[in-house]
């Protein structure tokens, strides 16, 4: 059991990170009914915007850059944690404006448009930041390793998991305890009724998409110090995010969180004891859950179900 415990902790940690990735994705699917294949690109954009905020070496040669890079890394990192998600959110809102002509049409239109957007964003990243691997620096205080019960853990990963848990809580409070959250939830349940009650549905969709994109960007800033930063890093995100929302039940907040923890545990434990199956374990979990409960763990019951 002692041998297993570190892997359970690792799995739960990983699950929290997956939950952060999936949160924006499930919010957009719930309200917009759009499977946003550009979610990973927004994740990558958030991280690249954070990288730009922290500042590149060449920046030091400019007068302002010298002053900026002279600031402590912690200050620049904290600012990057805000700038990355906000700009990713703006990019998400632009994407939503492009999506508008597809509303009311078969879902394939939205899928194709977001897929195309993913390709465009990746190319823009290549043009602006180059194709090479980049390193998003983190403050020394959350870098390095810590020993817990004789086992070694990455300080940063523990920080990232705690940050994700906090972000999940904040988003939940926002959805549950604010009027805006109530409107979003109502929109996810019945958007036409929300319009009938006099709310501006277009603005709601714009804000929800921007909010979901900002969450993707936040996940990017948090995750890339672990995963590494490269133009196609977003591709690594879309598949687990998609699996998680299907396992959890499309549009379900807590379903996504629970599914993410389950996926994290599955990947973490198989990674230790049957490592070749670590990636496959996500799919096996999906088959197991959907096989018994087609709408996912906490998905809404379909009108067709008896």
């Amino acid at each position, binding site marked *: 059991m002692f041998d297993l415990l570190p892997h359970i902790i690792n799995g739960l940690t990983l699950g929290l990170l997956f939950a952060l990735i999936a949160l924006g994705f499930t919010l957009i699917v719930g309200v917009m009914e759009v499977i946003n294949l550009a979610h990973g690109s927004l994740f990558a954009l958030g991280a690249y915007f954070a990288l730009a905020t922290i500042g590149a070496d060449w920046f030091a040669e400019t007068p302002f850059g010298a002053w900026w890079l002279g600031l402590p890394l912690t200050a620049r990192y904290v600012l990057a944690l805000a700038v990355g998600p906000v700009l990713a959110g703006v990019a998400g809102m632009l994407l939503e404006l492009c999506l508008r002509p597809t509303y009311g049409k078969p879902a394939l239109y939205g899928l194709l448009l977001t897929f195309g957007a993913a390709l465009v964003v990746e190319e823009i990243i290549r043009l602006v930041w180059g194709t090479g691997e980049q390193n998003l620096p983190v403050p020394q205080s959350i870098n390095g390793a810590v020993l817990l019960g004789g086992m070694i853990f990455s300080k940063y990963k523990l920080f990232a998991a705690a940050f994700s848990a906090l972000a999940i809580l904040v988003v939940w409070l926002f959805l549950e305890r604010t009027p805006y959250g109530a409107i979003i939830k109502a929109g996810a349940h019945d958007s036409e009724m929300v319009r009938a009650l006099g709310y501006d549905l277009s603005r709601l969709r714009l804000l929800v998409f921007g909010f979901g994109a900002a969450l993707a960007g936040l996940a990017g800033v948090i995750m890339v110090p*672990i995963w590494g930063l490269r133009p*196609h890093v977003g591709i690594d995100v879309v598949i687990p995010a998609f699996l998680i929302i299907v396992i959890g039940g499309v549009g379900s907040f807590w379903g996504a969180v629970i599914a993410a923890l389950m996926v994290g545990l599955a990947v973490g434990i198989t990674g230790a004891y049957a490592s*070749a199956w670590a990636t496959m374990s996500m799919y096996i979990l999906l088959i197991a859950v959907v096989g018994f409960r087609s709408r996912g763990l906490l998905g809404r019951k379909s009108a067709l179900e008896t």
Partner: protein
Amino acid sequence: MSDSKFTRRGLLGSATAAGGVAAFMGPWRHNRVYAQATDKPIRIGLTSDASGQYANSGASDRRGMLMAIEEANARGGVLGRRIEHLHIDTETTPATGSRVAERMITREDCGFLIGAVHSGVANAISQIAQKYGVIYLNTNSSSPTESGENCHRVKFVWDGNGTNFAKAATKNAIDAYGPDWMLLTNDYGWGHDTAATTKALLAEYGGTVMEEILIPQGTRDFTAALLKLQQAKPGVVAAAIGGDDQKAMRQQVAQLGMGASPAWINSQQDWPDVYGLPIENLFGVFGTTWYYKLDLPGVAEFVAKYQAMYPDTAMRVPGNVFYNGYMATRELLSAIERAGSTNNIAVIKALEGHRMPAESRMQHHDAYIDPNTHQVQQTIYLASANPSPSEPDDLFSIVTQSDPETVRDTGSAAKCALESYEATPTFDA
């Protein structure tokens, strides 16, 4: 006046019958004969990845090929013919590699194919190339299978393979860090083959495999594996992890401060995979075929030429992937000149057994193309991070060098059965 007359139906029937007969006469041999006119360019298909796990390495590989082609054209071409090139992204995907190769040969009239980093992609391309008899240079794949069971008469392998690198590293590492090893193995052909060699060498030199942890391709979180390492406390970790997976692994090992202990042996390290990473991410010892700081004649000029041709490239110096792309292309064009022909069989014969002096390859030992496996036998270097770089790009220091015979991959040689010349379709490009 003859009684016979041609009807439209009769003509169609005859054409169909002729087509059927032609089909039965072939396609056992594809005799694509092009007129060897001096004004007809030689077309080369560049089959390098521009996307996927090896996109960066593919770009570096391609830059090497382009520099060799530009040099040849600046000299007036080869056999008086200009060299043209065509690139299509192979996407680090074997199925795409097959499609690209088929299209380049059948629709784009490419007489030669060059490029690959992923061994599965290289294998897929080489099968298509062999079907048509088109010479294919595998520039940067390192699975021993490429010059072993997947060897082909038309394929030539330019990089050192996992066995070469493991041979260069294993004995020294056992002596220095002890016999208890754990293996981290990318769960695909190259990883498995490299690990198999390491296991065999450990058995030979008295080492022990405590455990092998298989890492699926595309893994981004290595914590489970690193926790296992920390629990088992091996003396050495032999990692055969490639491309972006390795970048993620390095990032996480550095965060855990596990780069110095245990000792890390990376059977191979492609320069584009680690270029720009902080020094703490460059832990361990790894194999390579070239480094831009080798103290050998011609190296400085080669670096200067690279920087003049690619002033805006993020990588400011040529790496091993660029080097292999360049050398392979240059030697192909040289072989065409020696053969005095673009006939594929003549060029294959000009490449087989060809010896390349150390000074021409900017290495420490002469190299040669093994006529039985088509793998270039060359100097293998071991390198580690450079704690006191003379300039920002000087990330590594060369620890040792091994001559080609010391690190020769005899296992692949035993498994390779090249097709006969007669079984290889002939044509002039």
